[in-house]
C-alpha cells in the first residue's frame, strides 16, 4: 500500500469501475485536483479496454450487422463542429460522452419548484425503439414479481411471515419504481444527445472553476445539462438555469443541484418555440425565483443549427 498517496492505489480499481459507490465519489472528488492520479487512471484506460480481447470468442448472428446499421441510420452523429468549438475540457475523461458510460452518473430531479419533470412518454425513445420495448418488458416483469410476492403472501399461514412478505413486496415495488425512474432519466439523456436537431452551449466561468455543457433538443424541447466541478448549493439554495434572449426577460429553464462530486447530469423540459441566444446559471433560494436575483456565474451562447 502506498502510505504517502493512498488515493493512488484506487486508480486501478477505479479504471475497472470496481470501486464501491461512496469510494468512487470520494475518488472522483480527489481526481479533480490531482494530476498524478489522473495520469495513473489514464495509463490504465487502454489496458482495461483491451482486457476484453481475452473474452472467449463468440460469433454474433449475421443479422446484428444490419440491425446496427439500421439503428444508426435513424440517428445523426453529434455534429463535429459543436465539439471543435473552443471550450475548456472540464477534466480529463469527463466529456459528457463518458458521463453516460461506466461509473456512477449522478441524476438530480429536475426543477423542484418551477417545471414538471419530463413525462416518461413513449415518444421520448424515438431513436432507439428497442429501449421502449425493453422498459415496458422490465416494468411488466416488475409488476409480475409484485403479484407473485402478493400471491405467496396468501399461502403463508403464519401472520408474522405474511407481514414480512408484504413488507418485502412493498420494498420490491419501490425498488422497481426507482429503477424505472432512473432508467427513464438515463434514456432521456441519451435520446437528447442522439437528437438530429441539437444545439449545444458551453458555459464558461466568469470568475470560478466550474463549467457546464448544455444540449438543447429543439425537436423534443429538452435541455440536457452536464455540470462539472460545481460544488453543491448550500442548504436552502439551489442553482437555476436561464435562457436569455434579446429584448426579453430571462426565461427559467429549471432548478437543479449537483452531487457531492460537483457533477450533475439531468434533462429539463423547455418551452417550445423559444429563440434563445445564451444560457446562464445563477444561485437562487431553494425552489427557484421568477427572475434572477444575482449575477450569473456561468454564461455561454448557443451554437449549432
Amino acid at each position, binding site marked *: 500500500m502506498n502510505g504517502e498517496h493512498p488515493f493512488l492505489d484506487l486508480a486501478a480499481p477505479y479504471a475497472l469501475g470496481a470501486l464501491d459507490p461512496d469510494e468512487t465519489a470520494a475518488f472522483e472528488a480527489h481526481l479533480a485536483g490531482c494530476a498524478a492520479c489522473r495520469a495513473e487512471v489514464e495509463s490504465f484506460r487502454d489496458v482495461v479496454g483491451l482486457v476484453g480481447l481475452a473474452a472467449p*470468442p463468440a460469433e454474433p448472428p449475421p443479422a446484428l450487422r444490419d440491425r446496427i446499421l439500421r439503428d444508426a*441510420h435513424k440517428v445523426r452523429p453529434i455534429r463535429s463542429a459543436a465539439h471543435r468549438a473552443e471550450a475548456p475540457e472540464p477534466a480529463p475523461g469527463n466529456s459528457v460522452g463518458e458521463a453516460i458510460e461506466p461509473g456512477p452518473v449522478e441524476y438530480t430531479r429536475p426543477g423542484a419548484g418551477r417545471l414538471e419533470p419530463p413525462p416518461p412518454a413513449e415518444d421520448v425513445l424515438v431513436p432507439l425503439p428497442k429501449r421502449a420495448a425493453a422498459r415496458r418488458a422490465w416494468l411488466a416483469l416488475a409488476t409480475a414479481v409484485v403479484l407473485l410476492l402478493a400471491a405467496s403472501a396468501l399461502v403463508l399461514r403464519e401472520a408474522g411471515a405474511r407481514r414480512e412478505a408484504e413488507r418485502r413486496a412493498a420494498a420490491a415495488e419501490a425498488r422497481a419504481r426507482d429503477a424505472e425512474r432512473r432508467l427513464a432519466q438515463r434514456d432521456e439523456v441519451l435520446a437528447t444527445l442522439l437528437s438530429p436537431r441539437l444545439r449545444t452551449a458551453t458555459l464558461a466561468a466568469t470568475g470560478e472553476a466550474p463549467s457546464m455543457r448544455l444540449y438543447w433538443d429543439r425537436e423534443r424541447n429538452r435541455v440536457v445539462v452536464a455540470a462539472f466541478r460545481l460544488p453543491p448549493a448550500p442548504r436552502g439554495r439551489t442553482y437555476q438555469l436561464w435562457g436569455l434572449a434579446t429584448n426579453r426577460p430571462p426565461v427559467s429553464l429549471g432548478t437543479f443541484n449537483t452531487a457531492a462530486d460537483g457533477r450533475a447530469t439531468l434533462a429539463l423540459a423547455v418551452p417550445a418555440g423559444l429563440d434563445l441566444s445564451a444560457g446562464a446559471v445563477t444561485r437562487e433560494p431553494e425552489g427557484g425565483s421568477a427572475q434572477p436575483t444575482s449575477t450569473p456565474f456561468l454564461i455561454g451562447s448557443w451554437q449549432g443549427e
Partner: protein
Amino acid sequence: MVEQQGATTPPDAALVAAMAAGDESALARLYDRYGRTAYSIAYAILGNGADAEEAVADAFVQAWAQAATFDARRASVAAWLCLLTRSRALDRLRARRRRTRTLELAASKADDGMALPLAIPEPAPDRMAERGEARELVLRAMAELPEPQRRVLELAYFGGLTQSEIAEELGEPLGTVKTRTRAALEKLRGALAAYPGS
C-alpha cells in the same frame, strides 16, 4: 470476417473520424473489425445471445453517435469500443440482478442470476492464428498473471463486481482484493505497453 491491416486499409482512427462526418460505411467497417470482439465481451458478461446482441447494438450506435467526441490521442479505438460494449453489457447485467434479487425475496433461495463469468481459457494453438496479434498479446499477458490476480480481474471485468463484492465472493479481506487488482492491472499495463494504438 478477416481483414488484413495494410497500407490500403484505413486505420481505426480514420474510420472513427469518417463516422463523425456521417459516413455510415465507416461504421460498417468498424463493426466488421470489432463486432465479433464486442459480441464476445458482451456474451462473456451476460451469458446469453439475445442480451449480448442488445448490448452490442447499444454500444455501436453510441459509438456512431459520439464519434466526434473520440480523441485518438487518449485511447485506442479498440479499447474505446471494448469499453463501450462492456459498459452497456454491465448496465443490462445490473438491471437483471435487480430483477433477480426481487425474485430471491419471494423464493427465499439462492438463484444463479449473478452468473459468474467464464474463466478465461488457455489459448489453443490453432486459435491464435485466427484472432490476431492483439488478442494473443492479451491472452499471454493474462495467462502470466498469478491465478489469484487473474481471478480478481475476471470478477471485476466480466462480472462487474465491486471490490467489496469480490471480497465477499472470494472470502478474502478487502485490502487483499485491492492489492491484487492493482497488481494485476499494473502487470497488464506493462505487458500491453507494446500494443500499438491504432
